[in-house]
């Protein structure tokens, strides 16, 4: 316990990731689901940076950039969708979005 190893970060990232996943699965507010996805991405990013540090290699940090870019794009589009769905159905509850029900 006297030194922080990469394993600690893996554990932390795993916990954060699982929480994000849980959020996606149990929350009904579409916006919070988006946030949970962001949390999952962040867990991944954290691991990237930790490994970059662990391996003394900058590439991990570069990939964090790309993740952030994609996350930003995803949020922008996703929120626009959420807004327009809200305009149509007056709700951001994803349980209301069951038009695909068989």
């Amino acid at each position: 316990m006297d030194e922080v190893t990469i394993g600690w970060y893996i554990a932390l990232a795993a916990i954060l990731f699982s929480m994000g996943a849980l959020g996606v699965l149990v929350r009904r507010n579409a916006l919070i689901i988006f946030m949970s996805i962001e949390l999952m991405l962040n867990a991944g990013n954290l691991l990237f940076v930790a490994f970059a540090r662990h391996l003394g290699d900058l590439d991990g940090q570069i990939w964090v950039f790309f993740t952030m870019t994609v996350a930003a794009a995803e949020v922008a589009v996703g929120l626009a969708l959420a807004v327009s769905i809200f305009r149509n159905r007056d709700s951001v509850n994803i349980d209301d979005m069951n038009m695909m029900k068989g």
Partner: protein
Amino acid sequence: MGHPIVFLILATVAVFAAIGMLTSRNAVHSALYLVLNFCTVAVFYLVLNAPFISMVQITVYAGAIVVLFLFVIMLLGADQLPKASSNGGLQYILAIFATAGLATALILQLSGFGDGTAKPESALDASPEAIGTLLFQDYVFPFEITSLILLVAMMSLIVFKAQKRKKQDG
């Protein structure tokens, strides 16, 4: 890779923030917990010798993404969902078990990875110059691709908006 006490404090805050985000009834509170989580992760980045990423993390996530969330929540007034009929506890139980299982498995199996073989801190030159050099030399193609992704996202938003406006006009 940081002092254990620092790590533990930060990790506690991060996990606490994540739990808060998960359990808040109010979407605005969730967003704030998320910001807290992001800021903690940013501090982790600082500890991990990635100041540049850390700052970008705050700017992009805290400064842009969550602000967008807040903006949308406020705009829609969607901070609290009306009570709706939940479709069963099975979903909750299964989800909790599955995520718990995943977390346990990952922690148990992966946290032993590469024990104590971290490179010294000096091995990593994370200055903006180094990142820029790497980004524009080795990763220039993915970089351009991300710019394309952003462009497409932007265009999709514009199209979206334009359609909506047309619908309103018509």
